[in-house]
């Protein structure tokens, strides 16, 4: 099992506390309607986690701002995606 946290630990972030830049529009859609829940394995930062009740939770702290989750949610368009406020989020040292 790969610990994605260990990878993300190497990165530099300035988290905009309490203002996540991505939100699940309607969590019910993820739990009830989405069969693939592909965000839970395709997100390269592992921000989306599914629990035993089939519910998906999102924590954006480690987000790499790639846009994957928004693009793959093409059946339900359930990801409300914007960039963090200026200066916040991932700050690549090397890029």
């Amino acid at each position, binding site marked *: 099992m*790969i610990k*994605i946290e260990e*990878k*993300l630990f*190497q*990165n530099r972030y*300035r988290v905009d506390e309490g203002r996540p830049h991505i939100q699940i529009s309607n969590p019910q859609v993820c739990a009830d309607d989405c069969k*693939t829940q*592909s965000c839970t*394995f*395709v997100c*390269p*930062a*592992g921000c989306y986690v599914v629990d035993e009740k089939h519910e998906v939770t999102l924590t954006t702290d480690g987000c*790499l*701002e*790639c*846009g*994957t989750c*928004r*693009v*793959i949610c*093409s059946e339900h368009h359930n990801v409300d*995606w*914007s*960039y*963090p*406020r*200026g*200066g916040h*989020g*991932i*700050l*690549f*040292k*090397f*890029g």
Partner: protein
Amino acid sequence: MAEKFDAIVVGAGPAGNAAAYTMAKAGLSVLQLERGETPGTKNVQGAILYADALERIIPDFRDDAPLERHVIEQRMWVLDEKSFIGTNYRSDAFNSDQPNRYTILRAPFDKWFSGKVKEAGALVICETTVTELIQEGKKVIGVRTDREGGDIYADVVILADGVNSLLAKKAGFHGELEAKNVALAVKEIHFLPEEVVQSRFNIKGNEGVVIEIAGAVTHGMVGTAFLYTNKESITLGIGCLLSDFKKAGIAPYTLLEELKAHPAIAPLIEGGEMKEYAAHLIPEGGYKAVPTLYGEGWMIAGDSAGLVNAVHREGSNLAMTSGRLAAETVIALKERKLACTALHLARYKTALDDSFVMKDLRKYKELPDILHGNPHFFSVYPQLLNRAAHTMLMVDGQDKHSKEKTIRGSFVQQRSLWGLVGDAYRMWRATR
């Protein structure tokens, strides 16, 4: 706040910097907005810098740009589980005064480029996210930012806000990216002493090696991996089409870990200290996925316009060239005192069509469809090639004629004779 600029550039990547630099150098009043803490902190690339595109903007860039290594050797590897078969091209001719390709680290490089933009006279404001375009009817007249009183106006807005291109989407200039037209790449940078990098890759001074990789590591998904040598580090990554990731149910970092553990790769990065993990989308839809490139008071350049030549792993040079051509369009209109209407900005499209940017994209316009429909190019063939090499190189008492027959048989069995002919024809059609 009624300040008005000749042009606003959104984003400080290769496209935005090329555009802002070119316009500022020509004396236009330019505002460039960047959401990162400094230019480069939001930007991700492999990264190879193609000198030509930058030379046309800053001819003497080699004097002070933070370059890692100039590429003297290109390896192309096709991997099976335990092996690889490949080609090398190495030439001392690449050790010229004006090398053609360099490895770079985007964060320091973009910061340097932005310094040049400022020197040229543009106003560069960082830590500012543009939230939407301000429109008067159809015409873009400025941008709204996340700063208080953050409305700013200009005669033209050049969108260089990267692959996600949220602004153009919000304004309805184009739709959402399709998962089949975009690759998700993940990469890591591993630091090693300079001498170790040099000895492992048989290079001296600032010579560099790049390895482009296909085969088993992508699990049959349409995608490739790469390994680039930097001065004191190695960048390695892997990317596949997002639609394939979704279908395969594989996490991108799983592929990256497998790549790192592959017997051909592991010794090259052994002992390295991983210092950053990044992910990025690459628009790979090619010619057919390029959106409308201009309209009333706006143009779009670089990744946000989908200008990437996926076949040749080129993007930043297309970005710089499109940014420069957009800027030159504005400069030409200003000289003639013409307004930045869609009618006049059409020159940008014409200039792009006449450049290598659109010519190359047009050349490969069928390829994305062919790869989607023929996944065996990324699964069956790598395996067949590796096994063929293995069969020929194993000296085991079997005669060579029989070995050849075995190899031929394995190809025909996997793809059938017509399948092989069809594959060859399709690839020829798609790349001619």
